[in-house]
């Protein structure tokens, strides 16, 4: 009887995993990040991301599990450009995970937001629910011009049309490190598992590791006063932590809610909420 009660209590626990085996976390130092996009190509190479071609890219169907977002501040001559790498945040309370009717996406014991390609039926609800827009759909079965397919990573599935995909934190590398550690009867050492983006980053802006290990590099980054999470107000509890760019605000920065010249033809016009929102923050 008591076992049933225990089981019930376990099953009724929010979060279910009271503790992750490893809690893989990424810290992105925006002060170091230059937006050079080496990570973007590294991700493409590691994870067999297809080359979609110009036409499909223009249709907004590019496959980039990791992208650099750019945000302008101010106007000429006091213009400033900010970069922020955006990838699957591996939220602990991921909006995408509730969406899937067939359990193609779920949370694994390492805190990773996992996507099971062969279970996916392509309702795309997860992508709609994702506030970070880091889920990518195979609108077509993409092919590689021969012999480019010889480059494909044998550790990573090539996805077919109708399947959702996204950043896995290079789970194949994590699993290799875990296998190795298990063989040697130890935990994965800090820095042993590195996703392709972190490995490639020429400024070491991306730090990856296990948050459960208080001495890991990423745990130390989390202590940084600059640390924040994107769209934290949505309570998704991302596993990607950003360290705010430490640049001085631009002169006349108070004016940054002003939209200014917009390259987009549907540019937003000046709005009235700015005072309210800044009040709310203060």
């Amino acid at each position, binding site marked *: 009887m008591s076992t049933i009660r225990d089981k019930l209590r376990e099953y009724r626990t929010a979060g279910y995993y009271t503790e992750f085996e490893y809690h893989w976390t990424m810290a992105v*130092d*925006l*002060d*170091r990040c*230059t*937006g*050079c996009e080496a990570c*973007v*190509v*590294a991700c*493409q*190479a590691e994870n067999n991301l297809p080359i*979609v071609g*110009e036409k499909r*890219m*223009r249709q907004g169907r*590019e496959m*980039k599990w990791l*992208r*650099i*977002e*750019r*945000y*302008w501040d101010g*106007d*000429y*001559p006091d*213009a*400033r*450009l900010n*970069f922020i790498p955006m990838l699957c945040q591996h939220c602990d309370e991921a909006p995408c995970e509730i969406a899937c009717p067939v359990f193609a996406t779920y949370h694994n014991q390492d805190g990773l937001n996992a996507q099971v390609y062969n279970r996916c039926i392509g309702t795309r609800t997860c992508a709609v629910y994702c506030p970070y827009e880091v889920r990518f759909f195979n609108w077509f*079965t993409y092919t590689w*011009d021969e012999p*480019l397919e*010889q*480059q494909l*990573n*044998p550790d990573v599935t090539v996805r077919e049309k109708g399947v959702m995909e996204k950043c896995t934190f290079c789970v194949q590398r994590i699993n290799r490190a875990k296998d190795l550690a298990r063989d040697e009867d130890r935990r994965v050492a800090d820095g042993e598992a590195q996703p392709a983006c972190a*490995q490639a980053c*020429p*400024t*070491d802006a991306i730090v990856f590791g296990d948050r459960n290990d208080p001495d890991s590099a990423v745990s130390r980054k989390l202590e940084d006063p600059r640390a924040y999470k994107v769209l934290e107000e949505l309570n998704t509890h991302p596993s990607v932590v950003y360290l*705010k*760019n*430490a640049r001085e605000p631009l002169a006349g920065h108070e004016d*940054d809610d002003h939209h*200014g*010249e*917009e*390259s*987009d*033809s549907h540019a*937003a016009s000046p*709005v009235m*909420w*700015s005072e309210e*929102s*800044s009040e709310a*923050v*203060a």
Partner: protein
Amino acid sequence: MLNRRDIFKYLAGGGVGVGTGLLLGEVNQRPLETLLSTHIPPEDFSPGMDTWYKTLCRMCPAGCGISVRVREGRAKKIEGNPNHPVSRGGTCALGQASLNALYNPDRLRSPMRSDGEGGFVESSWKEAFEAIAPRLGALQSAGMGGRTWILTGGFLSSGEEALDKFREALGANVLRLGLDTPATELAAAKAMYGFSGLPHYDIGSADLVVSFGADFLGAWRSPVGYSKAYGEFRQGGDGHRGYLVQVEPRMSLTGANADEWLPARPGTEGALALALGAELLGRAGPDDEPAGWEGLPGALSLDEAAALADLPAERLRALADRLAAAKTPLVLGGGAVGAGANATEALTCVAALNRILGAAGTTVRPNLAHAPRFAALSDIEKFVAEAANGEVSLVIVAGVDPLHDLPHSLGLRGALDRTELVVALDSFPSDTASAADWILATDTFFETWDDDISLPGNGKLSVTLQQPVQRRLYDTLSVTDIVLRLAQRSGGALAEALPYEDAEAYTRSEWATAWTNLGIQDDFDAGFRQVQQQGVWVADLVEGMADEFSAEATVPAAPSEAQFAGDASEYPFVLHPFQTPGLREGKGARLPWIQELPDPQTSVAYGSWVEVSPATADELNLRDGDVVEVSSPAGTVSAPVLRYPGVRPDVIAMPLGQGHQANGRYAQGRGVNPASLLAAERDGKTGALAWAATRVALRKTGERVRMTKTSGVSRTLGRQILGPEDEH
């Protein structure tokens, strides 16, 4: 044609014709391939196991070390080599994408012979050597080696050495080509620091970096090495945070990351640097002034410089304050600043500022000397003139693409047309190779032996070894192999100069010789094996190996006024060509991953664009995607407009690297090449090509295109994406 996959598609579509489908599927089945030869596996081949090879990235002259993951005999992934002193485990987008060059579907798979009508037919090495070697032999024996020109790049490698030996033995001419060669920077370093290599800039230990036009995070010299240093500069372990000021007319990637971006008028940067130097000298008092530098004759006051450069004077004063307060400042100059008509003078002023700041010797250090001599504009003109006179019998183009990269106004295409025999050594049907009589298909750097001494360097002596990581995919040879074979087949002095069997033997022999010369007595084989494992051989510079700072330096002169091709009234804008981190001068264009990579600042992929300041665009009534005709005295191109907030209103910026006439399916016919706009301007001091000294005019064509651009709205709209707002 139906193949198996199509059939399964149709089956999925409706279950129609199951029987037919299966039947056709059987008929069209490809012959069984042997998956893995496990009986006699090749060396280093174990199925399912990764092998990592340390080698050299040859995508740009930076000379980064990489580590290549090989599975089942195929290179799979590039990663940085943490042992490498320049790249320190980092890679750039272009390096990551270099596998696309290896597996590119449009790579040349065998030597190609021109059919005389613009097309090429497959040939064999035997045919190729039989066609070329006798000509060489004839030229050699006739003592007409001078009628041969070798067009090559600027690597400091054994391969280039072989080419150079070949040239010497033949008595041929060489043109070391490239758009953005460090010729002006070398001249400035020689003048101000007194050494003949490129300086090593220690960005990592600087607390203030002022960069005049050098996009060191994007595409300038050694982006990975500088980026590594930049990481430390920004958030080093000791808690200090460096301050970066970027002076340039168009916000580059470095400008985007700078704390301050100063859009100085193009061509005024040297005067600006000199004015800052004079101000600092004035502030510090006479004690610190180098001898003879009192007051820096010709230097403008800060106010005058501000007016000249079209910058607010208070910003310059604030900059001078920062420079004065900085403990380890560093000033860089390059990019368009090193490519104006007064480039050497400007860079000399920048270097002088380093001396005034005391950076020379601390954050600016000597590198290994011995930079090659890059072709000045006059050299190119000489070649073109000789070709026009029919005095050029043979041109060997080794891995460079001058017909695309260099200003078309130089007339290189015509020169090659008038040459009797043009032999291109290339892995791709590049624009230049497509104009050749023979294309000798070369290996990619994954398939052959070579080495490199990084020119931008790291303040140490480091030689990176390039070794094959997999078997050749096709019937190709390396440049060194080709040179060696040509030499042997030609006989005479050529054969004597290069008595090596192949690239591997040659490279090993070069290393053995070098180590002997350096007095290294260790067992060579063991040492070389170790280098193969490490990927690089590093030693501290020893006395005499690199030049020292000269104690005395000439007083920097005020730079002359920048001259631009084209009349300001007819051509109101200065053209600012820039390299993107992926495309660079054009090598990235044939790599699909690079084509598909959104430009960091603009998010444009697959194509060219014209950056116009929003103010200018409003004036000309231009929206994003409006096609404009950009015309200069040298040519005209049409491309869509992109309103770019980070460019001066009197400057038009265009990315280099697209607009290939050949070069495979990913590059060909995509975008436009601003090189066709560039006038044959030169730097006044060195005669080097000044590629940022052309004026252009804009004309709206009325046509409109949808650009391939991933970015929607590049404003945060007040959303706290970049972090919580600071409390003011």
